[in-house]
């Protein structure tokens, strides 16, 4: 294994503020054969998987990124003197998950599923850049159409939309809940 290459990868991921994709790595290190890159990357991930480290490499939005560990949250907040980060409101989360599973989707379609007008939630989500407008639907009134963004993936630590909890997983939870009630 190429130790020097591993060190370079570590430096590159360290410097990135957004998940560093394999494509970008290849662009930077275009001289290096891909299988060598892969091997070095895997070795680096293995190093960081060790329990004793204070930083981790996570895979998110199709790239690699350093983050601290959840269990160190309180110390970091003490250092930065920051309150707990705020979660999305239930209404915003509801709207967002409908968009995630039904995209591309219009405001009217979202509101129909929720049974409530969702305009205000769309504003919040647009401002947080968790969703984006991607055009118009060919339908009466030509309504705007929404999709989730890159930042959505990053926000939830998903590698791609494929990583969203699947139908079967949801069905299983519903089944378990039903059993619990009866």
């Amino acid at each position, binding site marked *: 294994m190429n130790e020097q290459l591993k060190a370079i990868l570590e430096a590159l991921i*360290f410097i990135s503020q957004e998940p560093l994709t394999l494509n970008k790595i290849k662009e930077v290190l275009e001289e290096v054969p891909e299988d060598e890159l892969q091997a070095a990357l895997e070795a680096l991930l293995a190093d960081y998987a060790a329990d004793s480290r204070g930083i981790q490499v996570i895979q998110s939005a199709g790239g690699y990124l350093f983050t601290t*560990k959840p269990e160190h949250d309180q110390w970091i907040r003490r250092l930065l003197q920051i309150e707990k980060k705020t979660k999305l409101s239930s209404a915003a989360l*509801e709207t967002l*998950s409908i968009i995630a599973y039904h995209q591309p989707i219009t405001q009217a379609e979202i509101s129909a599923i929720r049974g409530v007008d969702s305009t205000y939630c769309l504003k919040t989500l647009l401002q947080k850049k968790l969703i984006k407008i991607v055009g118009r639907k060919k339908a009466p009134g030509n309504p705007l159409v929404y999709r989730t963004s890159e930042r959505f993936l990053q926000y939830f630590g998903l590698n791609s939309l494929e990583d969203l909890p699947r139908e079967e997983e949801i069905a299983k939870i519903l089944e378990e809940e039903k059993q619990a*009630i009866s």
Partner: protein
Amino acid sequence: MEQEIQELPESQVLTPGSPVSNDGYQVRLEIFEGPLDLLLFLIRKKKIDIHDIPIAVITRDYLEYLERKEQINLDREAEFLLIAALLIYIKSQMLLPREQEALQADDPRQILVDRLLEFQKVKVACSLLREKEEDQLLRWKRTFLPPVARPEEAELLEVSLYDLAETFFLLMKKRERENLQVIRGKDVSVEEKMKEMVGYLKSRGSMDFLEYFSSQETLEEALVSFFCLLELVKNHLVVAVQEQLFQTIRVWLRRPRTQPHGHSHE
């Protein structure tokens, strides 16, 4: 504590028999995200099979919740009324004498059942995403450029003068609140301040402008430092970068370019 109230319905739906659902009268309409949320809550509470809803019972319970409100806010609660109307309509359909065994597809409840099933899935997806969110919110990412980066090559988001001005006015408001409106004598010249700022940047590499601004002794000095920053940016002597709106502004000295910037490959 507003947040906790917001999260109640979610936990009710997922953990039946929670303390709130035991004492129904403590549950206010406001805590439900919408009429479907309320309906699901009632169905859970009564341990009803969603595919076979006793529509008369549910309609009565549902209306009870609406009636508990002294005033119906039409903007906010129109959607609750809409579903109430649907429930009453379905109830009336169910009461009609049926000539033969109704086909399942003709069940007037079907439209409601479909919506509830879909909404139920959304709720579960929400709880799963919430777990992921909670995990991610506890992880900290760097949102600044480490010192090795050369800021003039990395210009993330160069701040517009508008951002600067907006930030400035926010600061002014904050200062006002802090009752620091006393402007003391001591003349501060723009030239001196500019020299001081450049000196600061030379010795420290970069500057957190908000911090610098607030550390000024008098409001006048703080004001002068702001105008100096504008001047320095305008004359391309420094670069000011704000990674996110309302975050601090970081300022670096701009290095004179020795060569026209060559793109490695384009």
